[in-house]
């Protein structure tokens, strides 16, 4: 018995040890450091372990509150648009096609093979003053001067984020819809449910876990988006990710940047709880 127990401990250490070290060194330790930093202050470009709530108080200023609010708004909007665009795609992929399923699935995943940065730059080319959209509009005589709000705006940021993150909505939802027992749909039809009501009363509620996961996969990176708003948002559409980067990269205000990061984390945790709770259909195990 004792030998067996020793073996079990050895096996547990062998399997769980490396990932524990990895997570400890690269996730828990930095997070703990940030949590500490967020309560310290900077004096003459030196970080001083002087306990204070001042960093969090600074976040409550209208400037930062406004940016937080815009970030949440854009992240939610991106999530909603991804859901509206992604649900029909996932539904079609999972339930309506057999022959093109693989091809379409590859098409959904394909954009993920190109760099995030490249895709963001592509939108600059499309939306810019001399970009494809403006040239087309002028060529068609629909406008004399280039449309200015296409680029460096909330519009540009939202559009690009939807484009970049919509596969992350489609894939988990596809996985759930694909596994949905076809007998349930047959039963609904047998009991007189037409297509629309079968969808509304059976398919949609049972796919909510996939919708919730997809929403999280879009909302979380959108909240922390940095490169896309930096390149496409310009001065008019700053998101909180850029401000955090400035604190660490330019302003050398690690405590303020840490306080912002932890606030973003708190917002995401609250949102995640809400999403997952809303996405649990009745009668399923928690």
């Amino acid at each position, binding site marked *: 018995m004792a030998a067996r127990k020793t073996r079990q401990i050895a096996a547990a250490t062998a399997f769980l040890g490396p990932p524990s070290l990895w997570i400890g060194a690269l996730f828990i330790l930095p997070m703990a450091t940030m949590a500490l930093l967020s309560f310290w202050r900077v004096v003459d470009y030196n970080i001083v372990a002087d306990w204070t709530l001042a960093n969090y108080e600074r976040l409550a200023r209208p400037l930062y509150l406004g940016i937080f609010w815009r970030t949440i708004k854009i992240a939610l909007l991106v999530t909603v648009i991804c859901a509206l665009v992604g649900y029909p795609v996932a539904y079609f992929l999972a339930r309506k096609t057999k022959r093109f399923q693989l091809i379409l699935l590859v098409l959904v995943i394909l954009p993920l093979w190109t760099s995030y940065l490249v895709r963001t730059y592509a939108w600059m080319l499309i939306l810019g003053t001399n970009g494809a959209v403006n040239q087309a509009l002028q060529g068609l005589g629909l406008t004399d001067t280039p449309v200015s709000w296409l680029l460096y705006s909330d519009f540009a940021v939202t559009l690009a984020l939807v484009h970049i993150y919509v596969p992350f909505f489609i894939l988990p939802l596809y996985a759930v819809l694909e596994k949905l*027992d076809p*007998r*349930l749909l*047959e*039963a*609904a039809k*047998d*009991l*007189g*449910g*037409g297509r629309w*009501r079968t969808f509304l*009363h*059976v398919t949609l*509620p*049972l796919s909510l876990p996939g919708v919730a996961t997809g929403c999280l996969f879009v909302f979380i990176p959108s909240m922390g988006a940095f490169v896309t708003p930096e390149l496409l948002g310009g001065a008019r559409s700053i998101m909180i990710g850029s401000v955090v980067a400035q604190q660490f990269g330019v302003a050398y205000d690690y405590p303020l940047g840490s306080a912002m990061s932890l606030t973003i984390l708190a917002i995401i945790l609250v949102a995640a709880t809400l999403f997952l709770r809303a996405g649990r*259909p*009745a*009668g*399923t*195990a928690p």
Partner: protein
Amino acid sequence: MGGTEQPDVRLRGVVKRFGAFEAVAGIDLDVAPGQFVTLLGPSGCGKTTTLRIIGGFEQPDAGEVFVAGVPVDSETTKRHTRMVFQSYALFPHMTVRQNVAFGLRMDKVPKGEIGARVEAMLANLGLSDQAEKYPRQLSGGQQQRVALARALVTQPRVLLLDEPLGALDLKMRKRMQGELKALQRNVGITFIYVTHDQEEAMNLSDVIVVMEKGRIAQVGTPEDVYRRPANAYVADFVGETNFLAGNLAVRPENVLIGDVIPSGAARGKGMVRAKSFLGASTRLEIETEGTTLVATLPGAVSIATGDPIAFGWRDEDALHLPTKDSK
């Protein structure tokens, strides 16, 4: 199955292919109202496909299907059948009550009426205490009853059941067989039941439809099918059979041994090769002239393995089967 009444279900020349495989190879069948009809056969004989065609889940490649005189072919037709699925297919996100109410909601029955009918159906099937539970909280037998309630509450003309007891253990299966039979008498509608279990078919059915390779091998009462099998396939599939020379066969329980063989019934001598005591009966395997004859005798038998034994059967107990190539 005669009578002048319009049949509840009528199949005419029904064919269904899946690729090159002909699952249903031309079926004609009339089912009279109020009967418990079983489609019986091994897996792959087309019984489930036939049921799914009657239910409108599969489009036949040829032939016609009528339920209550109405052709089953378009999605818009108000349907007279309801299906109880093998896996029950209960909606996991709905309570028992919501599951049972589903069909009535889809039929746009007034709310007050839905409530009353659902309560009555739940009470009828002993589910009143489970009304607020979700399917995963129920036992297999209870889920089975919910599936029945959900289908029956919509008052179909015909209830289709696709091996509904397959997922239950033996004891529960026996109990549900009794309940199903009583339920069918109680509601008085036609049940069409699919199973591969011949004992279950015998126990439940008014009429058994024995199927083989997409065709109907025989239609008859359980007694017909057992005592007067149409061919060797039916004799073999329904009950155990000793096939003899020519086109004769004899059931194990009709094989007589030792002193009880009346004059004129003696057929030969052999040796007991195996013996198993089954409680209510004893099963002997008798080796004779290179073949094995199975005999089932009531109670215990004082014969040992290796003993020489005389065997026989009455002429009237022998089954006369049409020779296979005459089909």
